[in-house]
């Protein structure tokens, strides 16, 4: 029977990321060492070593392969994925979501913004963010 799985990626390399709480206890975490992705991103060796060193300290299986192909092979019942920001990662995650049931888990917020607003300049953002930026957990409830 297929099981849930956590798919970590290079913007969420920590055990305290909320994705671990979102998934049922004991859910296995994997990281796919995806040559094509790294080549596409054109990373130098020092970036790859930094990622690898970080992975070695995490409770995660590092699997070499294409990300989508690996996930399809493992066929999880539900895939938990940390939200990403890099457009390359986002499109990779979008392609996975088309094939496998997936839940995207956001990281802890830095501030609480009351409404979704369009920002073009930093001070438009800061005027809204300042209120909670100096509070623990960026929240008045903390």
């Amino acid at each position, binding site marked *: 029977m297929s099981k849930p799985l956590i798919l970590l990626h290079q913007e969420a390399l920590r055990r305290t990321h909320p994705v671990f709480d979102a998934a049922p206890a004991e859910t296995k975490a994997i990281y796919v060492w995806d040559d094509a992705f*790294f080549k596409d991103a054109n990373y130098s*060796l020092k*970036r*790859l070593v930094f990622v690898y060193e970080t992975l070695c300290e995490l409770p995660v299986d590092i*699997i070499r392969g294409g990300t989508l192909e690996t996930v399809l092979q493992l066929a999880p019942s539900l895939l938990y994925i940390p939200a990403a920001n*890099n457009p390359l990662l986002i499109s990779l995650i979008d392609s996975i979501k088309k094939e496998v049931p997936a839940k995207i888990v956001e990281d802890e917020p*830095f501030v609480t913004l009351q409404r979704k607003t369009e*920002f073009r300049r930093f001070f438009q*953002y800061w005027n809204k963010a300042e209120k909670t930026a100096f509070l623990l957990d960026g929240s008045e409830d903390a």
Partner: protein
Amino acid sequence: MTSTLQTCFDDRDSLIAYVKKLAPWADGAASQIQGGRLKAEMRLAAINPIKYGGSRNFGDGHVTRLSPYIHHGVLSLNEVRNHALSQCSQPVQITKFIQELAWRDFWQLVLRAHPHWAWADVEPYKTGFSAQDYADALPADIAEGKTGVACLDAFINELIETGYIHNHARMYLASYVVHYRRVKWQAGARWFLQHLLDGDIASNNLSWQWVASTFSNKPYIFNLENVERYFGKLVDTSPALNQPLHATYETLQLGLFPNLGMTL
């Protein structure tokens, strides 16, 4: 069948050799800066967010060097902020530090809302030139740190060797690439992403656009006097070895943006 990769090594050199084998195509050598949560926690414990405010612009100021850990999510911005709060008696003492963390949050939100801004000019250049006037490719002398401008070559060598340079050095290099050499910001941004351990499309590319003026009200420029003030103790700032930068802002402005006159 999937097989898992090795995660236990006798020492760092063995780990590096292993990664080299996995990615024989990847350029360069490993950095002295090490990954992992333990290193991140050690760095976090050493920050001084109060002294940060007055010294952050200086090459030897109290910057944290946390960016590679924050970019990879090894530390969340939230936990860095929470830790900084525990280091002060009044939050106002660490205003500048919180604001710089907020810059990261801001860039992330902007890119989330507009993913295509990662590589597209958000606004036209405000330099008196249009995008077609800028070269597409990064010249080899810049990529290799052989520009002949001593302070910039020092920053480039540090970037290539360690994968980290100070924010001010990033601004100088970006300004040099775009405004002194008239190269598209995209070429410079791609180059930084290859090397920076914290290389982050939101913070990097939108900062390049900020320097270029395609996401700000005016181009950012600097002169040798500025480098001397902030990095004089760390890099060679002699006029003889930094000729192109040795000028007043008025002269630079006229030379770099002849179509604008003195309107900045």
